[in-house]
């Protein structure tokens, strides 16, 4: 058997995509024009799948701070905080994150992926129990694999099922850790965090919430679902990323528990990789300042995502359960999804093609993400192009139910 033969199913999946048009993994944007537009094959494309929720990638203050730091401190740190030391701005950023969340301390990581990997795998050790939502992001699954704890999945967004699975552990020693996300990245549905917090309190567990897609979006002050659900005091650890609403790259974990900072000397995803470069750290300090002081970005992205969500809903698309900045519409199968995605690009719109197993319930999706930088005209154009393509490919039905993560499974079982 050749070394790469085990990837035959991947090749088959890729062949199917290519048979239906472009290879999605080989798009080359020639120029990024703004948070909402790029040049592709010489044409201006509307970007509707970037997770650039607050449009801060071209924010003048962020670019200015970033470029000043680049000139002052150089292009990279060339090593980890443990080996090469901490730059002042690393410490400033960690302080600002902790202040933003009103917690004792925060630790930054080089990506959000590593933040999950580091936090979860280091916290949950041998004899402990990790209870993760079934639709968790790959980084949470990989963290679970890396941890020495026993890993149990609970049904997506189902606090009763979580309680049931915790009850099964009754009498067993070890800490319990519950892991959920603020907004789930495929269907844009938020976790029932208030109910999950009740389970946590009643059953005795630690609660970790990944706010990757909800930081700066949910809550009066943009602190995410924990704030919006009024359960910040119940959440022991918040994880997040700088790569979406904050417009850069990197990740963090924050906690109020004393002793949290010792993680720096135990967490391999923190210790054995280079720290964030100065230019990135400076831009995140600036973008975090912006979202802490200016609620208008949040208001704009919320209003734009509602415009897209209800526009598509009204046009007859099967949309996700809630209007959040991730708006996904269901496609009947892989081929149609690939064709739809290609036709959108022909018409000048870039969205994400999301296919199983990266999706819940084996759903085939066209996934859009909305930015506060989108204009109403851009959103309306997207709705009208998506509707026209859907009519052409016959994917619209009358009075479709809203998507639920179990929709695919339910269908294949029937």
């Amino acid at each position, binding site marked *: 058997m050749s070394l790469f033969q085990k990837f035959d199913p991947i090749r088959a999946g890729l062949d199917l995509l290519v048979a239906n048009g472009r290879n999605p993994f080989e798009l080359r944007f020639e120029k990024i024009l703004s948070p909402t537009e790029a040049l592709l094959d010489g044409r201006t494309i509307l970007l509707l799948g970037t997770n650039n929720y607050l449009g801060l990638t071209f924010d003048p203050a962020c670019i200015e701070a970033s470029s000043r730091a680049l000139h002052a401190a150089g292009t990279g740190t060339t090593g980890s905080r443990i080996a090469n030391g901490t730059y002042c701005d690393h410490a400033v950023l960690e302080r600002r994150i902790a202040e933003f969340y009103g917690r004792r301390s925060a630790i930054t990581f080089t990506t959000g992926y590593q933040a999950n990997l580091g936090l979860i795998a280091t916290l949950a050790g041998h004899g402990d*129990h990790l209870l993760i939502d*079934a639709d968790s992001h790959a980084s949470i699954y990989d963290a*679970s*694999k890396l941890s020495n704890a*026993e*890993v*149990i*999945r609970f*049904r997506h967004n189902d606090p009763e099922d979580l309680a049931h*699975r915790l009850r*099964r*552990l009754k009498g067993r020693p070890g800490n319990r850790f519950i892991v959920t996300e603020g907004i789930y990245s495929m269907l844009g549905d938020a976790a029932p965090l208030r109910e999950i917090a009740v389970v946590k309190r009643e059953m005795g567990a630690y609660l970790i919430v990944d706010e990757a897609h909800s930081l700066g979006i949910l809550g009066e002050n943009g602190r995410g679902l924990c704030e919006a659900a009024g359960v910040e005091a119940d959440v022991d650890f918040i994880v997040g990323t700088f790569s979406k609403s904050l417009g850069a790259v990197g990740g963090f974990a924050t906690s109020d528990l004393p002793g949290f900072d010792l993680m720096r000397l135990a967490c391999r995803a923190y210790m054995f990789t280079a720290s964030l470069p100065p230019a990135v750290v400076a831009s995140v300090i600036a973008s975090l300042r912006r979202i802490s002081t200016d609620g208008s970005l949040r208001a704009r992205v919320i209003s734009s995502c509602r415009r897209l969500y209800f526009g598509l809903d009204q046009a007859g698309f099967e949309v996700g359960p809630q209007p959040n900045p991730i708006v996904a519409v269901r496609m009947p199968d892989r081929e149609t999804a690939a064709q739809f995605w290609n036709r959108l690009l022909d018409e000048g719109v870039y969205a994400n093609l999301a296919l*199983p*197993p990266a999706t*819940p319930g*084996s759903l085939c999706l066209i996934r859009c993400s909305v930015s506060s930088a989108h204009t109403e005209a851009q959103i309306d154009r997207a709705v009208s192009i998506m509707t026209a393509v859907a009519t052409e490919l016959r994917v619209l039905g009358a009075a479709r139910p809203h998507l639920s993560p179990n929709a695919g*499974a339910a269908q*294949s*079982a029937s």
Partner: protein
Amino acid sequence: MTYDGRNFEGEILELLMARVPGGMPVSVDTQIVGGLGLDSVAILDFIMDLEDHFDISIPLDRIAEVQTVAELSSAVEGLLRATR
């Protein structure tokens, strides 16, 4: 394999068949990963079905090496015995 007079393999096969697309034949020697057209998430969902059916926890690390229904059956039986 029996325990409490139960036919674990039979019960597991039944649950597995409900998950397998297009009525593919399934036996105790079927390779669960790769042999049935189930992707990684579908297999995890099947494990969840088993947890609820047998009312046990099946930690993911515990079944990492399991390949066939027969092996899964003995893993489940072991977990059930451990909880009594």
